[in-house]
């Protein structure tokens, strides 16, 4: 059954209000494919039934599940390759020099999904910076989706997921297999702290980050939300801190206080 026009409008307004996610007209199929499984698992015969219930009882937690079901959680180990290369060649050497007296590095994987990004950061550090033994390295992993955070915390990945982007040599070094799943080493998981955080709402007190990965999430937001996030991000980073955005994201014309820094054929942004 096709999605009714006002049902689409209702979901559109809900995800915009709760997560700043913009659902353009034409994305009806996305609502159908994401919400039908949720409707079924909540005991409704159709999406219309689920949304009716939501309109009548707006405060029963169902709206959160609807918003979460509408998020796109696509991710991969070493996604796009070059951010992790730049991390190794340019960023971490600068950070180690800058932090040599405190020997503490704070990294944020904002919108971490199931954690592959943070695990890839951790592997990059372990592989290339043995000097970091004795340092405190924290990778804060945050997302809106409680399901994704649970996965991130567990550090458990399917065969299909570890096939993607992860060199076999790193797989056998940093994961152990349990049946058909692969679990990230406790060394890696110890660096990671997983917390729920909605980027579109007020943020809790955060450390002064040296490095932030906020990749492939701002693309879903409206311009005002992007501006507000980039502005607030400056205040939780140390001057000269490093920001990685997704390939389709930029600070240009949104918050020009960021210093656009080309490295090789890629770009990283530095906090003023």
């Amino acid at each position: 059954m096709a999605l009714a026009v006002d049902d689409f409008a209702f979901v559109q307004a809900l995800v915009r209000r709760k997560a700043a996610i913009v659902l353009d007209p034409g994305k009806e199929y996305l609502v159908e494919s994401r919400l039908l499984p949720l409707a079924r698992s909540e005991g409704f015969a159709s999406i219309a039934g689920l949304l009716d219930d939501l309109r009548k009882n707006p405060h029963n937690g169902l709206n959160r599940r609807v918003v979460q079901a509408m998020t796109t959680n696509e991710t991969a180990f070493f996604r796009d390759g070059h951010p992790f290369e730049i991390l190794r060649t340019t960023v971490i050497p600068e950070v180690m020099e800058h932090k040599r007296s405190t020997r503490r590095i704070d990294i944020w994987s904002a919108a971490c999904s199931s954690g592959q990004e943070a695990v890839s950061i951790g592997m990059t550090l372990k592989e290339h910076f043995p000097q970091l033994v004795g340092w405190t390295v924290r990778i804060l992993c945050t997302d809106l989706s409680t399901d994704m955070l649970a996965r991130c915390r567990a550090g458990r990945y399917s065969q299909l997921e570890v096939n993607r982007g992860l060199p076999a040599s790193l797989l056998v070094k940093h994961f152990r297999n349990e049946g058909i799943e692969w679990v990230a080493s406790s060394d890696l998981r110890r660096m990671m702290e997983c917390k729920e955080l909605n980027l579109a709402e007020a943020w809790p007190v955060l450390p002064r980050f040296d490095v932030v990965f906020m990749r492939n999430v701002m693309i879903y937001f409206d311009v005002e939300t992007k501006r507000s996030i980039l502005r607030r991000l400056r205040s939780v980073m140390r001057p000269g801190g490093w920001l990685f955005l997704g390939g389709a994201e930029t600070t240009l014309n949104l918050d020009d206080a960021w210093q656009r820094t080309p490295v090789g054929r890629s770009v990283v942004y530095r906090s003023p």
Partner: protein
Amino acid sequence: MRALIVDDSRAMRLVIRRILGELGVPAEEAADGAQALDLLGGGVTPDVALVDWNMPGMTGVELVQAVRADPRFAGLRIMMVTSETGADRIQEALACGADEYLMKPFTPDVLREKLNLLTNSEV
């Protein structure tokens, strides 16, 4: 880039050849290790070999060892493509000279990503 597919399953070779074809990578096929060595020795010069583990005669890992023992093939990048999925198996293949490892089943995208990892290029 050129590829050599070594797999005793005709269906599997076809699947892999199709995916490679869509990526613009031409491929030779061998149904076992001996045939693969014949092709390589006979002047076929692929950049990458995609090698199954369990085949009649020589196993894939034995093929990798044979290839690695021959300096003529020093530039060949080798990826195991197999339904063997234990960490010990992966370790063994890498120790014997395989450069990458892809666990079956996989999607076309995954094969493309692994090829890129293997050859440090973008197909």
